[in-house]
């Protein structure tokens, strides 16, 4: 029992950590450096965090090996093991919701501010644009952005409130995210979102697309009004990444390692880029130190990827009510996410199904069964944990503050969320 597991994980380590993850992480790290054009000296420095990832990767995958073979289900020990990595966490477990409460004071007017940006006199278009800004979303992105902004401000010796531009970025982040959701729902033909009918379901596809475009233009105006061209560039990159990520979902790769790399890159573009670049944007406004920008960016990138990996796991493990959308939605859309890609290493039968995007009759059910039989879900969760550890390592480089510790704790919440 242990032997195949061992072989499997070794193969996985060589196949995925060795090529896929490292290659995926490097270009991404490098790209962040190249996108921070005003700091050409950064190119050399940016390989640093990248190089640091590699050894820690190995250490951590070994530690995973240890407990996953002995106690496959207990994932808690590694959370405990995380604590020494970061600077002392002062929180007790009783205050689990801390990051959210801590962020709340900067987000009380979030949705009102967004609605002001979307102001158009009278028309129906207004109600379409406001539809998702009803306060029922998790607003996880703005939470991360304001916590990061405060942590960075303390790190940079700037006390007091958020800068107006930082507050605006928190809002813009949520707007860009929502605009992309609206278009995604049309692309995927989704009829439900956040526990209610999707925009396209209520008003039709034509109007939904226009609403998405309008939200994007309003976000872009608010972004320009911050008046910092570097910030504009950083967040415009996100918009391009979102589309490119969506394009990446159209294709599947024949080769398994390619496929994993493709998946992580897509995940970065579709989910992590927004968080990473928003964190970077708030750092640019308070600090001129490219290393600080990089910390912010890396935290956002790693949390972002972890967030999406957990999302992909939940697609298999969560019931329809909990996620607000039907489970196995990704399979039904023909998408092979982490759990399937891992399962494919144990069950090569999945390969053909992945290539035909689960389009034959019964594919979705069969793939689902294989995934549940495999340890694809655990492997993906573990990978998410790895990204969170890197996020923690990065943000721990900042001066201690309640907000920094909240960002550390937030990674646990990302991992443990069930919806």
């Amino acid at each position: 029992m242990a032997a195949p597991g061992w072989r499997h994980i070794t193969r996985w380590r060589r196949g995925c950590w060795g090529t896929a993850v490292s290659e995926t992480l490097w270009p991404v790290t490098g790209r962040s450096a190249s996108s921070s054009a005003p700091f050409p000296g950064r190119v050399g420095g940016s390989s640093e965090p990248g190089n640091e990832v590699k050894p820690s990767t190995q250490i951590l995958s070994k530690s995973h090996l240890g407990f996953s073979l002995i106690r496959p289900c207990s994932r808690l020990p590694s959370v405990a093991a995380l604590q020494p990595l970061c600077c002392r966490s002062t929180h007790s477990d009783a205050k689990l919701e801390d990051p959210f409460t801590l962020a709340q004071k900067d987000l009380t007017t979030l949705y009102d501010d967004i609605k002001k940006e979307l102001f158009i006199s009278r028309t129906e278009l207004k109600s379409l644009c406001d539809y998702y800004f009803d306060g029922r979303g998790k607003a996880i992105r703005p939470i991360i952005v304001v916590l990061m902004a405060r942590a960075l401000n303390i790190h940079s010796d700037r006390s007091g409130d958020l800068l107006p531009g930082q507050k605006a970025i928190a809002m813009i982040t949520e707007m860009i995210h929502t605009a992309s959701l609206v278009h995604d729902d049309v692309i995927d033909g989704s009829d439900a979102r956040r526990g209610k009918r999707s925009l396209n379901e209520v008003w039709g596809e034509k109007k939904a697309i226009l609403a998405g475009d309008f939200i994007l233009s309003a976000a872009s105006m608010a972004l320009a009004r911050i008046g910092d061209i570097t910030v504009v560039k950083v967040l415009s990159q996100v918009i391009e990444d979102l589309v490119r990520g969506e394009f990446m979902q159209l294709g599947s790769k024949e080769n398994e390692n390619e496929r994993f790399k493709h998946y992580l890159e897509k995940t970065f573009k579709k989910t992590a880029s927004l968080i990473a670049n928003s964190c970077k944007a708030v750092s640019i406004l308070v600090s001129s130190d490219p290393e600080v920008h990089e910390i912010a960016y890396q935290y956002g990138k790693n949390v972002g990827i972890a967030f999406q990996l957990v999302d992909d796991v939940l697609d298999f493990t969560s019931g329809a009510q909990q996620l607000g959308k039907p489970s196995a939605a990704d399979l039904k859309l023909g998408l092979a996410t982490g759990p399937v890609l891992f399962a494919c290493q144990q069950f090569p039968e999945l390969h053909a199904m992945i290539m035909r995007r689960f389009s034959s009759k019964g594919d979705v059910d069969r793939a689902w069964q294989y995934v549940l039989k495999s340890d694809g879900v655990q492997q993906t969760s573990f990978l998410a944990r790895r990204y969170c550890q890197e996020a923690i390592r990065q943000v721990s480089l900042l001066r201690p503050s309640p907000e920094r510790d909240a960002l550390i704790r937030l990674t646990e919440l990302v991992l443990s969320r069930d919806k």
Partner: protein
Amino acid sequence: MFASACSKLLRRLTFPIRGQRTLSLFSSTGSSSWSKVVSDAEKIVGYPTSFMSLRCLLSDELSNVAMHIRKLVGTQHPLLNTARGFVYDSKNNLQMRGLIVLLLSKAAGPSHAADDALGQDMVSGIYPSQRNLAEIVELINTAFLVHRGVVNLKELTVSDGLLKDMEFGNKMAVLSGDFLLANACTGLAQLNNTEVVELISSAIGDVVQGIYYENYSSAEDGLIDGVDVASWKEHIFLTHGALLAKSCEAAMLLAKHDKQAQMLAYLYGKHLSLGHKLNSDLQPFVKGGMGQPVTFSLNAAPVVFHRQLVGKDRWHQQLQQATTLSNQLDYSKLLATVKSEKGVSSALDLCCFHSNKALEAIKAFPSSKARSALENIAFAVTKF
């Protein structure tokens, strides 16, 4: 009761037009004088080829789309027509907005403030950032052409073919439109001017609102009555004027020309677009074109004026008279009705008004070849 029957009829009539929708406001004018002034103007700005659009067209993403679009051949999805238009219409002023931005940039020339501050060399009398802007404007315009091709899946009928094809076409339309818009966003950021980013972003918002009003506000207020002339003007400015007006203004901003020049450029762009929109609306009403089956939008300028002039009741009556026994609208008959009244001449007057306003604005720029080209273009919108 008549109103509801009629509105049902009209709603049915507006959708089939989808397939033959004109591609862009600048592509429908067939007049040779127009083509002449445009091709003359293109020579003035040096190379008219849009590099950014070229980069987009050659990207992996769009070649991917192009490959997928082939699957749509034989289906009814409008994206196919839009895509076809990129090929067939490319000669026909598809990149008109970009050209006008370039001409205005050249007509305004270098500014005293810009020479040191910009640190960029002019090529054929135009700053590189202004050329980039011209391309961005085209990207935005094309993005909306593509997004307008998204169809409402619930309204499909059997004649539209397979739902699966239409879903796929929608997917491609959303993605490629988004791709163009995203490239416009990054291109805008590279212009290094947040004022310009804000201005052009607001123009994107204007276009969205315009398209929304144009297509749906009439449905809200009851399609049968349409909108009055005042709100119609407001809507066509948003859809057809705002992007060009604000782009012209932005071209002045990029070269650090003063407020006065920015305003004049804005006015030129605004009035030229409106003049051109009226010109294309007027085409079926002034052209002899016997034998050809006519269709026109019931929101075309002459109809909007006509409706306002004759009043609601007579308009309803006329609509009913133009409706055949098989519940089809006889466009030739309706055309004759509209032509018998003052709607056409009112629209013509407005067209000349905008042409004059555009000429007035451009007169303030120093005399040059570029300025003459802009004058000729402004003249051409009144020719039929």
